[in-house]
């Protein structure tokens, strides 16, 4: 596991050197008496395409320019330089910050943003320019999700270096924050990851000891999984070689939560390694509604509209199961929630449904061994 440790430190150096390169580029242009300018990939919708090989959205060839010469560019250009400067400070001093904190910190440098959306956009610009996710610049979102299971991690955050913790140590689960995502994996007995849409079922799974019964690391996504959680799942998959199973509500929205973990989102088309293409959507499927005779609600208009949208989405073309389940949803016009299994008793979902789903043949496209 020592190599992993090196990898994290290495990555930090990479990021810092990329920021320095950006600063030097501007410095040299100014020094030559020129208005500094940069180009970066365009994030406009025309430039976002789906790459079937990478199994995620990517940015195309189009690039946009930013020049300090242009009166409309100079403000965002300065903001970008500031965010790079601030990220460099954070990363070199091994501190972290949040999106909101960045927005407020700007005021100290007389670099006010109109609102947090503006500062968020500039941070996304820096991601696009450098190809690194904001978490690697030590900037994290507020949203938190949690993990529980037998995994020892070694902290790399200042003050905790050398300390390690087992992720079963706290019965509510451990927040997936900067300290966890920057940690190194030491050892685990788990042989799979189960990502769960909702906090309530995550807690139930802990109570029912799913982590030991099924040798799994449990992750609560808290709805749409945050980017750092998605990238953490990717690491669990890549570094520990664990298969990933996703449990969501049985409706188009739950289906898409799983899809974003698997294929990523268009908003993050400028970044890599946020998605886990080999992850599996285990349920709740439309066919489960029939097979398990689950209590349901009718699909409403928005649900149906969403299903038709997803039907055309390139991410839903890779595996036949998506189209099959979308068609079935549209046919039965019903939806359900994970909690629906409680009609068969509190432990049914753990004792009956989950084992059946985990045994299910992996989906065809995902069967390719790494």
């Amino acid at each position, binding site marked *: 596991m020592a190599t992993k440790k090196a990898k994290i430190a290495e990555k930090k150096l990479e990021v810092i050197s990329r*920021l*320095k390169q*950006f*600063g*030097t580029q*501007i*410095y040299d242009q*100014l*020094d030559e*008496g*020129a*208005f*500094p300018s940069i180009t970066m990939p365009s994030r406009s919708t025309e430039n976002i395409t789906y790459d079937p090989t990478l199994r995620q959205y990517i940015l195309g060839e189009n690039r946009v320019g930013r020049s*300090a*010469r*242009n*009166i409309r560019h*100079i*403000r965002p*250009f*300065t903001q970008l*330089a*500031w965010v*790079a*400067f601030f990220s*460099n400070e954070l990363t070199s001093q091994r501190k972290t910050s949040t999106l909101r904190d960045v927005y407020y910190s700007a005021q100290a*440098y*007389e*670099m006010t943003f109109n609102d947090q959306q503006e500062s968020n956009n500039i941070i996304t610009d820096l991601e696009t320019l450098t190809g690194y996710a904001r978490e690697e610049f030590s900037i994290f979102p507020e949203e938190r999700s949690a993990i529980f299971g037998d995994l020892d991690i070694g902290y790399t955050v200042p003050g905790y270096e050398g300390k390690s913790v087992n992720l079963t140590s706290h019965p509510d689960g451990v927040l997936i924050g900067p300290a966890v995502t920057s940690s190194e994996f030491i050892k685990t007995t788990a042989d799979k990851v189960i990502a769960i849409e909702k906090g309530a079922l995550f807690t139930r799974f802990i109570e029912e000891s799913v982590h030991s019964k099924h040798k799994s690391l449990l992750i609560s996504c808290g709805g749409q999984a945050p980017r750092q959680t998605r990238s953490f799942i990717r690491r669990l998959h890549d570094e520990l070689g664990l298969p990933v199973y996703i449990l969501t509500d049985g409706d188009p929205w739950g289906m898409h939560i799983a899809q974003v973990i698997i294929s990523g989102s268009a908003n993050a088309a400028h970044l890599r390694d946020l998605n886990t293409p080999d992850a599996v959507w285990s349920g709740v499927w439309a066919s489960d509604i029939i097979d398990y005779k689950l209590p349901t609600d009718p699909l409403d208009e928005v649900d149906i509209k969403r299903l038709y949208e997803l039907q055309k989405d390139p991410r839903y073309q890779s595996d036949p199961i998506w189209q099959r389940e979308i068609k079935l949803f549209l046919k039965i016009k019903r939806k359900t929630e994970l909690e629906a299994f409680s009609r068969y008793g509190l432990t049914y979902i753990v004792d009956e449904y989950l084992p059946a789903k985990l045994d299910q043949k992996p989906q065809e496209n995902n069967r390719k061994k790494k």
Partner: protein
Amino acid sequence: MGQASFEEISASDFFYRNRDIAGLTNPSRSIFVAIREVVENSLDAAESQKIPPDVYVRLSFEAEATKETQIYKLRVEDNGSGIPPRFIPSAFGQVLYGSKYKLKQARGTFGLGGKMAVLYGQITTHQPVTVTSSTGQEKIYTFKLMIDIQRNKPIILDRKVLINKENWHGTIIEFTIEGDYLRAMTKIIEYFKQTAMVNPYANLTFVDPKGRLYKFNRATTVMPEPPKETMPHPYGVDVELLQRLIQITEHTTMSSFLRGHFHRVGEITAQKFLEFAGIQANKNPKKLSHEEIVRLMQNLKKYKDFLPPDASCLSPLGEELLKAGVTKELNPEYLVVHQRKPSTYAGHPFIVEMAMAYGGGVPKRGNFVIYRFANKIPLLYDEASDVSYRVISAMNWRRYKVSPDMPIAIVVHICSTKVPYKTVGKEFISDRPEVRKEVANALREVSRQIQHFLARQEHVHMEKKRLGIFSKYLPKIAEFATNLAGKEKKPDIEKLLKSVQKYGNEES
């Protein structure tokens, strides 16, 4: 059966009974009108001799009259031509007597206003008027007069003669009048201020009943060319005027009568017109029957080929003087003036002059401030009924990128031998198509110039803002880049900032 009684009333009596039509409607309005009429006579008297006017006005409290009104003494001194002694009694003591029956531009129209003021003073206070005047000759004459209202004749109460050691010329008039100064105060002071605006060559002094001094000093001694007297234009005559001309004429043929009494009628025009009207060229005008006179008048109006009147009888301010006057009273940030070419309505020549002032001392009212003048008289009442107001309101201002909440003053001066007032009170100008067209054209011209000014200002403003943005952000970029690059010395950005100034228009 009663018998209707008919009595002939004199002109004085008529105006005494109908003083409302001269604007003497209430105590505050009356005092305003009285001051205005006398001051205008003074200005005319100086201007006709090309003397830069010095007019001193003092209104002093005499006694309480009623709950709302007081008795005031009004004294107006000028340095004008003065009045020959034999004319003084009639000039101030007989209504409709005056020097303004010939055609040239003057402030007053009927020779009525000043005498109305005196008449009003007499009927409200029963006191005589004192007139002192000299034409600059050896003697100064002082008359104490009252008007015999029923007979329209002056009554001379006293007459004094003084030696004029210093060759003084001018007129001093002093009389008492009942009115309400407090309520008229704002208008009176506004009147002086605006009068000063279109008479930049005049010194105006006003001492009010509280002893406050308002002084408006001249900004120049240059004066407009005084108007020349002209004969009436054929389009502007009526039956009454024709009859009077026929009475006094010495011409014995129609052809020479037309040439001798009408403006811009020569041999050929007279001949062609008489053919058109079917009147024999050698007919004696005194032999025309009443019906023939009426037909002559109708034909004069119908005939299309009279030459338009020329404007030598007008005395516009001119662009320079208008500029001087507006600058003196408003001190605007930017000022444009425009004088239209002479035009005519119904045989009367007129000229429209306009100024548009922006910023500086222009009062901010949330709407354009409009200063209206006719023959250099400020028009202070009934703004909304005036042709200028209508033209200004109807203008598509967005086209000129001008909005009413900008600090903009519009000065409209219409001068004419016969200003088309709507009422005898001389408060607003009627909406005649010819006048409206000239006002609109003048307004478009000054608006175009203001638009250019505003565009330039906007440009300068944008440039400043632009430079401000570069000066704010470039040093920061330099600072962050220096830090990121791990350098010690900041790059020099002065040259870049200079280049922004130089190539200000690119990429904006």
